[in-house]
């Protein structure tokens, strides 16, 4: 019997010809990624179990990307960046992206020019920008949204500090081989829909535990018609259905992207035609509608036009899910020449995205000009308020706000206050809603 893409990657890294779902295997690691929130704990586990003088399994295969708590005066957050810096120096870690402007106590002055800092920002977006995502590989990251990188035809999953400490010392980890659920996307997305609508629709259908312990493989001409960034949005939220990983087979677009970022060799693997799936679901993209997840769960699905009565106090465009350059291009398409009625926060995922806000244009105006003219506030690249963070975090919900957001989670208190309510939607829907001050179907503004 044939094997799925996920099974093939795991088998290859376990050094065997084939694996079966449910089987536990030890696999080798191509990349281990960590950041400022989980890096210090991971380093602590590594030192505790392998000794104070231990060396990491391969300093070229560990990527450290501070991104969570950068723009804060929190002393502990600064201390954690220093722990990363010391470890990088001690171990000779090659791929480290330092927030070099965090140099003293107090709230750091952000980078002046995003092209002149080593700092990148949100790890899941910086990884592909810097060439660390490659087909056929295994990427472990100390962050649940590590599954984003499945968009590059690799097995990518989030792990805790203990597992990461183990990988740091051995380069290996045990995994239970997941069953694969297949999601076949037919047709093409109309102009008023985005990948976010697709994945919110799917999560609403299968539930926040609908893919627990399983791989979610996306296939069909619909998924291959999507850009790389939109594919990342889909894989990013696999974890919101409980999935172990999301994965999209490699095509020419993937290879062109990866080749433009790295010259490291990789191996493209594909699911066999007779592979066994847990289940197969099919979707016609043209029939979807702008979709929203209501408080307090990503599977609490509704259609944007059925929530017109919901008054908002806040809009947020950012994060690994909705802070990529195409997310801002989409939002700017709606916001061009309009005014926002509610506080609207724009946070580019990375410093590269921040630069592109000046380079990309809508009707002759840069995206930055469009957002500022509309009355939005733009912050520096970071995870920022997606997960609340320290009290001084840009855009954080500090009271009973009603927010519509391009992020991935709306659990109680996720963006700050437990009294806040968060609605999740596409950048198009968030931008349209910011203009009205209530939840709005983007078709009201664009065709």
């Amino acid at each position, binding site marked *: 019997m044939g094997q799925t893409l996920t099974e093939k990657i795991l088998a290859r890294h376990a050094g065997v010809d084939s694996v079966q779902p449910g089987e536990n295997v030890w696999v080798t690691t191509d990349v281990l990624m960590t950041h400022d929130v989980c890096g210090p704990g991971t380093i602590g586990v590594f030192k505790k179990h392998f000794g104070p003088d231990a060396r990491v399994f391969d300093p070229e295969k560990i990527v450290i990307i501070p991104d969570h708590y950068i723009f804060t005066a929190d002393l502990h957050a600064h201390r954690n960046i220093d722990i990363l810096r010391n470890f990088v120096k001690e171990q000779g870690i090659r791929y480290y992206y330092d927030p070099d402007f965090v140099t003293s106590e107090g709230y750091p002055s952000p980078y002046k020019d995003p092209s002149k800092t080593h700092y990148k920002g949100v790890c899941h977006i910086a990884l592909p920008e810097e060439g660390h995502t490659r087909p056929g590989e295994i990427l472990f990251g100390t962050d649940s949204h590590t599954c984003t990188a499945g968009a590059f035809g690799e097995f990518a999953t989030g792990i*805790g500090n203990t597992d990461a400490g183990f990988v740091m010392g051995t380069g290996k980890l045990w995994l239970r081989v997941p069953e694969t659920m297949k999601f076949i996307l037919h047709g093409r997305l109309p102009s008023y829909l985005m990948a976010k609508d697709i994945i919110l629709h799917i999560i609403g259908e299968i539930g926040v535990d609908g893919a627990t312990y399983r791989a979610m493989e996306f296939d069909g001409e619909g998924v291959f018609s999507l850009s790389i960034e939109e594919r990342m949005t889909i894989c990013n939220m696999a974890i919101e259905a409980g999935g172990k990983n999301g994965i999209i087979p490699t095509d020419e677009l993937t290879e062109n992207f990866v080749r433009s970022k790295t010259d490291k060799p990789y191996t493209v693997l594909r699911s066999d035609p007779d592979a066994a799936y847990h289940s197969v679901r099919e979707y016609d993209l043209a029939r979807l509608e702008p979709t929203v997840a209501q408080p307090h769960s990503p599977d609490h699905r509704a259609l944007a036009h059925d929530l017109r009565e919901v008054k908002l106090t806040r809009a947020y465009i950012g994060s690994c899910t909705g802070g990529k350059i195409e997310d801002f291009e989409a939002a700017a398409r709606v916001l061009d020449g309009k005014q926002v009625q509610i506080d609207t926060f724009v946070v580019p995922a990375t410093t590269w995205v921040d630069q592109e806000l000046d380079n990309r244009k809508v009707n002759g105006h840069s995206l930055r000009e469009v957002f500022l003219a509309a009355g939005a506030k733009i912050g520096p690249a970071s995870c920022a308020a997606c*997960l609340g963070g320290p009290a001084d975090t840009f855009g954080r919900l500090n009271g009973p706000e009603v927010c519509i957001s391009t992020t991935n989670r709306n659990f109680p208190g996720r963006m700050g206050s437990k009294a806040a309510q968060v609605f999740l939607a596409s950048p198009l829907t968030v931008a349209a809603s910011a203009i009205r001050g209530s939840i709005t179907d983007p078709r009201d503004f664009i065709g």
Partner: protein
Amino acid sequence: MSEPKVIRGKAYILGDDIDTDQIIPAEHLVYSLDDPEESKKYGSFALSGVPLAQAGLPEGGTPFVKNGGWQSTFRIIIGGKNFGCGSSREHAPYALNKAGALAVVATSYARIFYRNSINGGYLIPATSREDLSRIYRTGDEVELDTVGGVVRNISQGLTHELVPLGDVAAIIEAGNVFEYAKRMGMIATA
């Protein structure tokens, strides 16, 4: 962690889909996990993200850890489905452990929380066949016997079956994934 085979203590009841932001809100993730004094903060804020109305069911209104303290009077947490969903933060089972919790009993788990609980040796994530969060009451005296495969509610005089731990029992028995790997000859004994 090498806990006795039978765990006994007061139960704390929560609902479905308890995510890791509720278990330990992100603003607290800045504290050291290694410093004995600073890490007590994780005990102080364990389950502090749960809305008060859902804290300690069925009545609610009972914080897991009393304000100002870092230790809970509850030892066993009872949940519904998909316990520990969301972020991969290992701070979640760590915080529950720090506050004194020894086990969770739920009908299902999110996989990263499950792995972290076992590989880090913080607590036993036991799986019940029946949703005990609808039956048990916060404060009930409960006994968890993972070897015998049952959980007993002493206060209510009830016994419920657990799903066998399977392969992970060996890691729980060893204490954590490092001890397990040493036993298996995967890594050298320090």
